């Protein structure tokens, strides 16, 4: 008995799930930057490089999700 059937690429669902983590992560990075800048405005020059590096590392995960979605388009 088939309760539910999914046709087409399941990779889209997979990417939706995979994007949750980086979404939360990017939100945390920017919220931490905004908080630290609000508490100590003169520290922004110090923290901005770390913010961009952290953002890049996290966002790379989300973009890799896109890439892998194309690589194994539902045939695994």
């Amino acid at each position, binding site marked *: 008995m088939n309760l539910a059937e999914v046709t087409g690429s399941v990779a889209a669902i997979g990417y939706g799930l995979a994007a949750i983590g980086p979404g939360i992560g990017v939100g945390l990075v920017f919220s931490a930057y905004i908080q630290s800048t609000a508490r100590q405005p003169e520290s922004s020059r110090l923290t901005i490089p*770390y913010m*961009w590096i952290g953002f*890049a590392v996290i966002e*790379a995960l989300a973009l890799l999700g896109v*890439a892998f979605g194309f*690589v194994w388009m539902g045939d695994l």
Partner: protein
Amino acid sequence: MARSCRLSAPRPHNGLVWGVSAGRIRPADIVRPVMAGDPKPPPPGDPGDDPPRSDQGFVAMSYLISGIVVWGFIGWLVDRWLDFGGVATAIGAVIGAAGGVYLIARRLGA
């Protein structure tokens, strides 16, 4: 219009924008300082001259996407050539993402 062509110093308030012929005065000087307290530009070499950038997000995203696209494409070509079944594309995407992160660290984090 008998207008002197020897306007060396900007004389901003007497109708300079007649026609396009007033090339000796840079257009920026035609406009009065817009606000009353228009700040003098700091002398060059002043560390405060380095402006805060509002485009860094675009730069970061552009590097990441470019890295993944370029090396993913190269990996895809290798896949087509040697028939690896997607593994080379995946490796290429990971390498490209690493390169993008490295570039962001160098360009934005210096």
